C-alpha cells in the first residue's frame, strides 16, 4: 500500500508538470490554431534561462524562476511579431503553421545547444533533503514542484473561467472573426495569450528541470510527446481537459509500475505508456475526455 501511495505521489509530481505544459499547448491551439511543435523548446528555453540566472548570476531559485518566466514570455511575444503574425498575414493555415513550428523547434533547440552546449545542467538546490510522511518519501524539489504547479494550474483555470481575459480567449477560440466583430481586439489578445503561454512555459520548463535533477537541451523535446498526449487525452481545445489529461497521464505512468498491477510494468517502458494511453483513448473517445465531439 505504501508502494502505491509513493507511486501516486510521484505521479502527482510528474502529472502536475505535464498539466502545466499541456495547458500551454492547449492555450496556443485553441485561440491561435497552432499545433505548436516548438512548445517543448519554449520549455527548454525557460529551464536554461533559469540555469543562467541560478548558476551564472548566482540568483536564488525564486528570482531565477521569475526571470525564466519573464524571459520565455519575451521570447513568445517576439516570435509572435517576427514569425506567427507574418505567417497568418500570408494566409497560412493549420498545417502550414504546424510545419513552421517544426522548423522553429529545430532553430530553437539548435540555438540553445549552440550557445549553451550539450552538457547536463542542474540547479543549485538540495536534492537530498527528504520529507517522510507515513512511509512516503518526497524530496524538497518534488514538494515545491507540486505546490507551485498546482497553484499555477488553479490560477490559470480561474483566469480562464472568471475574468474578461478568459472570456475573450474563449471567444477567439470559438471564432476569431465573430470575436473581432463583437469588439475584441484580436491582435492585442493574441499578444496577451502569448505572454500567458510564455510565463507558463518558463515555469513549467524550470519545474521539469527541477524534478529531473539534471537535464540537457533535449528536456523540452522529450516532454513534448507526453504533453501532446495529455492534450489529446483531455480533449483538444479544452484547457481544463489538458490539465486533467496531464494529471491523469502522470498517475497512469507511475501507477502502471506498481507491483500490484499485474506485477508492474518495467519502468523503462514509462515513456511508451503515455502513447499507449493516447491510442486507447483515441479509439474509445476520439474527442478526448472533456472535448466536444466535432462535426469537422
Amino acid at each position, binding site marked *: 500500500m505504501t508502494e502505491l501511495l509513493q507511486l501516486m505521489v510521484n505521479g502527482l509530481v510528474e502529472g502536475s508538470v505535464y498539466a502545466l505544459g499541456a495547458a500551454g499547448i492547449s492555450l496556443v491551439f485553441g485561440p491561435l490554431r497552432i499545433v505548436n511543435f516548438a512548445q517543448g523548446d519554449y520549455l527548454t528555453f525557460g529551464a536554461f534561462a533559469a540555469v543562467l540566472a541560478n548558476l551564472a548570476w548566482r540568483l536564488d531559485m525564486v528570482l531565477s524562476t521569475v526571470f525564466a518566466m519573464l524571459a520565455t514570455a519575451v521570447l513568445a511575444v517576439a516570435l509572435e511579431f517576427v*514569425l506567427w503574425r507574418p505567417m497568418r498575414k500570408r494566409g497560412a493555415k493549420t*498545417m502550414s503553421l504546424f510545419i513552421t513550428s517544426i*522548423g522553429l523547434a*529545430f532553430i530553437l533547440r539548435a540555438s540553445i545547444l549552440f550557445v549553451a552546449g550539450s552538457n547536463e545542467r542542474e540547479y543549485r538546490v538540495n536534492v537530498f533533503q527528504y520529507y517522510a510522511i507515513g512511509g512516503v518519501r518526497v524530496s524538497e524539489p518534488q514538494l515545491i514542484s507540486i505546490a507551485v504547479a498546482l497553484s499555477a494550474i488553479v490560477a490559470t483555470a480561474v483566469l480562464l473561467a472568471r475574468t474578461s481575459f478568459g472570456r475573450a480567449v474563449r471567444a477567439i477560440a470559438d471564432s476569431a472573426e465573430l470575436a473581432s466583430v463583437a469588439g475584441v481586439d484580436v491582435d492585442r489578445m493574441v499578444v496577451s495569450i502569448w505572454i500567458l503561454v510564455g510565463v507558463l512555459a518558463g515555469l513549467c520548463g524550470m519545474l521539469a528541470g527541477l524534478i529531473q535533477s539534471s537535464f540537457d537541451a533535449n528536456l523540452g523535446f522529450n516532454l513534448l510527446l507526453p504533453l501532446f*498526449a495529455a492534450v*489529446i487525452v483531455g480533449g483538444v481545445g479544452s484547457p481544463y481537459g489538458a490539465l486533467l489529461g496531464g494529471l491523469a497521464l502522470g498517475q497512469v505512468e507511475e501507477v502502471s509500475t506498481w507491483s500490484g498491477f499485474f506485477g508492474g510494468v518495467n519502468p523503462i517502458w514509462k515513456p511508451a505508456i503515455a*502513447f499507449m494511453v493516447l491510442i486507447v483513448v483515441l479509439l474509445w473517445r476520439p474527442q478526448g475526455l472533456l472535448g466536444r465531439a466535432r462535426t469537422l
Partner: protein
Amino acid sequence: MSQIFSLDFWSLVGAVSGIYAIFSLGLQLQFGVTGLLNFGHVASMAIGAYTMAILVVKEHLPLWSASLVAIAAGMLFGAALSLPTLRLRTDYFAITTIAISETVRYFALNEQALTGGALGTSNLEGPTKVTEYNADWVSFQASVQRWLHDIVGRYSESDFAMLVIVWVIVLLCLLVLSPMVRSPWGRVLRAIREDEDAASALGKRVAWYKLQSLAIGAGFGAIAGLLYAFEFQFFSPDDFDPLTTFYAWLIVLIAGTARIWAVPVGALIFGLIFSGTRFFNFKPFTYLDAAQLAYLRMIIIGAILIALMAWRPQGIFGKREEMVLE
C-alpha cells in the same frame, strides 16, 4: 578543402541522398498523393533494418530472403498503423504516428535480447560477440565494383559501387511508383486527399485505400532502411529518431506535393545542404567546433522549412492547385 574534390566523399553524399530519396518516396505517396500526415515514417525504416539484421544474425537466413521478409514486415507495419489511426483528424493522426514511431524506437532501445539495445546491431548476440549482418552484401558490392571497373576504370571504388546500386534502386522505385500514381488507383488516392466524403460517396472504400497507401509507403521506408543498414554496416535505435522523419518531410516539401520525379531532386538538394556545412571552413565559421557546425546545420534546415512555408508552400516543383497544406 581536399574533400570537395574527393570522389569517395561525394559518392557517400550521393548514396545517402539516394537512400533518403527512396525513404521520401514512401512519404510522398502517403502525404503528397493521399494526404496522410505521417510523422512517424521513420518507424518503417527501423522495422526494415532491424527485421533484416535480426533474421540474418539470429536465424541465419540468407541476406536476400531476410531482406524480402523485412520489406514485407515494413508493409505489414504500415497496414497495422492504419487500424488505430485512420478515424482521426489530420493533426491527431500526425501526433499519433510520431508517438507510434517513438514507441518502436523505445522497443528497439529496451528489448536488448532481441535488438541489441542502445549498443545497436554489434550487440545483437550479447556483448561478448561482435556481430555483422552484411557479409553477403559486402561480397555483392565488391562484385558490382569489379563489374564497374570494366566501365569506369580506377574510379570504381567501393563507395562508388554503392552509389550506383542505390541510384539504380531509386530509378526502379520511380518506375514502379510513377505509373501507380497515374493509374486509376492513384486517382482514387488523390480524390481521397481532396475530399474524403466525395470519394466515399462515389463508392470508394476510403479506409481500404488509405491502408494500401500506408502499407506501400512503409514498404519504401523498409527498403530505405535496408540500404541504410548496408551503407553504414551498423545501426542503433538512435538512427531512427523523429529527426529522420522530418528530413523526409523537408525533401517532400522541397519537391512539392504529389511530384514523384521531383523527390530525388529534393533529396539531392537535402544532401547538399546536409553535407555543405562541412565546407564552412572559412571565417567566421573557423571559430566553431564540429558540434556547433552540426547545430548550425539544424538551424539552416529549420529556416528552410519556415521559408518554404512562407513563400512556396507548394514546394519548388509543386503546383499550387495540388497543394495539400491548408
